[in-house]
């Protein structure tokens, strides 16, 4: 039997495709990565089907590349060596909402919009990244370790336990979800991420870009949604000053969402009419804005905001910041809207904010400590200028992590994907910027495409250890081969 026939037997004819038109859409994404056609698309509806496809792939030595979102930004679902793309979007159920433990269990196809709508029914919210694309899968965000907007937790990610199908076809449940009878008949409720035993499997699966296994559901944390909010937009001329303010805020352990955006990014997010609003906002906004949402808790929300505001004022006074604006010029009412915007996916009907200016954007992001954000901004701007890129177009986003212990630093380079010159400039710039940042100690914890090569070249010991693990979990290297250092 041919692979296609076997796949058809597993997932049904309607869910298998080798039509070139269908394959083409999986061969490329929004990144500058080199396209590569898959041989088949399979759309499983449950774990058993995933297991069967993976067993088939393993037995046949055919690569399997999972994808869960309707859009991809980093080239990490392009089948570098062909094979079967396992499109998980049919598995899009929210399996359960666990209110006691403030967690929700989602299948891979669940999008952020879907999740936030469901959690809102319980006055809860998912802990997500900055304005995810409406087609973005919640699971993908967590597997990719995208940074959360709220730095008040001691974890950067809120994924707890998963079910993962390894290359041998075993559906393995991580952490305390491994117990017999989970979830309905067990004492355990799947809330402990560690183990079973002395390994933490979900750590090995996260950041793996589909190279270790296919996750079929994940239990992720929610947080209580603040009853009321007060939003502050604190303008700065210098990034260093904005960073000092964020350090001060985070050391006081106040606020919910907290981030720094430059004028380009903030304008792109807030512009309603393009390009007029965008251009106007870029003119009127301060070069840097610290956004802080003070959220009133579940009880006595006004009093919570009151003490947080006091703390904020104290921090501002220490840094000689005269005002703490709660509005933005030219955007009446934005302070009331913003918490809702930040706690949801980007609206489906609006052009995605990163692409709105020019049609596409290439991001360079890494972790560093906040005190180095300004240095990286300058250096990467210089690299951009030297590459012939207009530095006024660069979007910068600094996301403090875990009480400001470090930050996700992201430079976005919008470009016109239909303009060959711009594509070439950004393509060169991307490589150059990554190499420069890496050389200066920027830490690429989730390296994609060409950056992976740069990172693993510098981390020989890590690559060697990873290859040993990979050999155990995927001895025939069928899971997303050609990715990372595999």
């Amino acid at each position, binding site marked *: 039997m041919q692979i296609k026939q076997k796949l058809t037997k597993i997932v049904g004819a309607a869910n298998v495709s080798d039509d070139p038109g269908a394959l083409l859409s999986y061969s490329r994404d929004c990144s500058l990565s080199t396209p590569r056609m898959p041989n088949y698309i399979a759309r499983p509806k449950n774990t058993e089907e995933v297991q069967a496809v993976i067993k088939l792939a393993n037995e046949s030595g055919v690569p399997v590349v999972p994808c869960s979102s309707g859009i991809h930004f980093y080239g990490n679902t392009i089948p570098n060596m062909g094979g079967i793309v396992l499109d998980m979007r049919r598995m899009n159920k929210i399996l359960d909402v666990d209110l006691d*433990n*403030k*967690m929700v269990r989602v299948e891979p196809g669940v999008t952020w919009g879907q999740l936030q709508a469901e959690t809102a029914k319980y006055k809860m919210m998912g802990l997500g990244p900055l304005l995810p694309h409406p087609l973005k899968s919640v699971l993908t965000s967590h597997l990719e*370790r995208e940074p959360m907007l709220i730095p008040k*937790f*001691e*974890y950067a990610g809120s994924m707890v336990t998963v079910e993962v199908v390894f290359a041998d076809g075993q559906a393995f449940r991580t952490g*305390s979800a*491994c*117990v*017999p*009878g989970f979830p309905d008949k067990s*004492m*355990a*409720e799947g*809330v*402990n*991420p*560690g*183990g079973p*035993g*002395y*390994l933490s*499997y*979900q*750590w*090995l699966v*996260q*950041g793996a870009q589909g*190279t270790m296994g296919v996750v079929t559901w994940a239990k992720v944390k929610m947080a*209580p949604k603040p009853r009321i909010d007060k939003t502050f937009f604190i303008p700065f001329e210098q990034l260093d000053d904005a960073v000092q303010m964020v350090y001060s805020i*985070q*050391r*006081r*352990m106040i606020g919910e969402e907290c981030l720094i955006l430059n004028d380009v990014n903030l304008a792109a997010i807030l512009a309603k009419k393009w390009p007029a609003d965008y251009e106007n906002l870029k003119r009127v906004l301060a070069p840097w804005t610290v956004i802080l949402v003070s959220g009133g*808790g*579940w*009880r*006595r929300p006004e*009093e919570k905001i009151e*003490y947080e505001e006091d*703390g904020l004022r*104290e921090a501002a006074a220490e840094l000689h910041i005269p005002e703490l604006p709660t509005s933005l010029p030219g955007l009446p009412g934005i302070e009331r809207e913003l918490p809702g915007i930040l706690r949801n996916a980007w609206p489906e009907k609006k052009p995605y904010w990163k692409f709105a200016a020019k049609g596409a954007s290439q991001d360079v992001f890494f*972790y*560093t*400590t*906040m005190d180095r954000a300004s240095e990286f901004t300058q250096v990467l701007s210089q690299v951009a200028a030297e590459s012939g890129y207009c530095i006024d177009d660069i979007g910068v986003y600094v996301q403090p992590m*875990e009480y400001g*212990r470090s930050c996700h630093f992201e430079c976005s380079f919008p470009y016109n994907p239909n303009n060959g010159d711009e594509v070439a400039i950004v393509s060169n710039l991307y490589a150059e910027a990554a190499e420069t940042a890496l050389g200066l100690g920027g*830490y690429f*914890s989730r390296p994609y495409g060409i950056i992976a090569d740069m*990172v693993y070249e*510098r981390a020989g*010991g*890590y690559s060697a*250890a*990873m290859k040993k*693990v990979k*050999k*155990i979990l995927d001895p025939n290297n069928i899971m997303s081969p050609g990715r990372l250092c595999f």
Partner: protein
Amino acid sequence: MSIPKEAYQTLQSIVGPEWVSDDPAICEADRYCSLSDPTDEKRRPGCSIEPSSTDEVQAIVKVANRYKLPFVVTSTFYSSGTYARKENSILIDLKRMNKLEIDEKNQYAIVEPGVTFSALQADLFKMGLCTFVPGCGGQASVVANTVNMGDAPIGWRHGLGYQRLLGVEWVLPEGDILKMGSLSNANDFFWGEGPGPDLRGLLRGCAGHQSKLGIITRIGVKVFPFISEELEPSGWSYHTTMMLPTNRFKWYNIRFYSHEDIINAMFEIGRCEIALVVMTVPPIFRGVARSRGVGCGGFWEYWKEAGPKLARKQEDLRVLLYGIGSDKRLEYEEKVLLDIVKDFNGSAREAPCQDETNFMAADAICANVVGGRFASEVSYESINQATRYSKEVDKITDAHRPPILQEYNTTDWICPYELGYVAKMECLRMAAAEDNYALQEWKRDVEVVCAERGAYALVPNSDVFGPVWGNYPEKEDKIRAAFDPNHVSSPE
């Protein structure tokens, strides 16, 4: 049998002759560690070695591989699994590696295994920062505890132990050095994940591997924002305490009508995101507190007398409110707490604003106060599981009593973390030293029942839990075989 002469001489050349010894007395003193399974045989190591750097550790491990000599690692001996199970083991004692560096602004510390929690905490306090000191005591090694367990009551606010791990430097069983997180690329410890798949997943699961996969020589560890006011110690050595500033902290002990109310109140406190510490207080804790300053014998004297009276009193909920940054915040937390107490028909009593177990953790109840005459089974899951688990364990205990002693109401302790996302439940059972066998039998029975009922235990017995937990030991065995082909890293 002894360590081959050539191997020994090589070890001497690595660390210098004064830092390796095969003197029987040196080795005898390194035979045991704390809290280990009493039924396991502990052998006197063949030699004891005290490296001072990662390079030396690496060289020692390579010698161990060359001569196929097993090695075991320790740094304070306050550990449950680091003892030699095989003849001719090299006991690697890391306490000379005690460098400590703190990045005050970015809130992390770089520590070697010889650094204890109390040492780190003392330096952090001066900077308005803190770490969390595990309940076993501030004399524990930060590295060992964090890679193995690392939880403590202030984890209610500051998360689980494993989350504190940032960059890690690790000498693998064959002597290769693995640098993880930002250390792999950026030569700094500020971030723990990756690059790519996060190999901290090899380092520890629910608990760590206790040197079965090599030796951790340095870690970056998160530290947390703290109050700027000083905590003042008070009292004499047998009965010291830490006075907490009353404008920043407030302890409440809260009595509810039922255990269910306690649990619901805990969940609600979590949803309201207040407090630094939330935990249940079984009557035995009250016994320990009241007999503080009279030692282990005094505790038993007190317990014999007061236990039956305490049996009529049920557990309390104990909450430490935390006004970091402002008086108003403390007031807010207090109002919210008292609202919750009212809603669940509890009665709250303010307790003295002092601490013996959370900031420096001077009293390790299980190990020390009851003098080792105990065993515990620890569940590590949701608050709901904690309650169910406790009931199961109670039933099993009844079948072993006597000689297991009376708990007087309950000795089970629920300590939730991360604002209630996960909770530790420690079921403590006690027996006289000569009745230790009964505790071991009790433990085995608890494991069997919990495996059947789908409970999640902290340190599972792989023979019992492996078959029902996705055969995880198979994966562990493969990992060990791949990373430790000579089977020298703390072999069993």
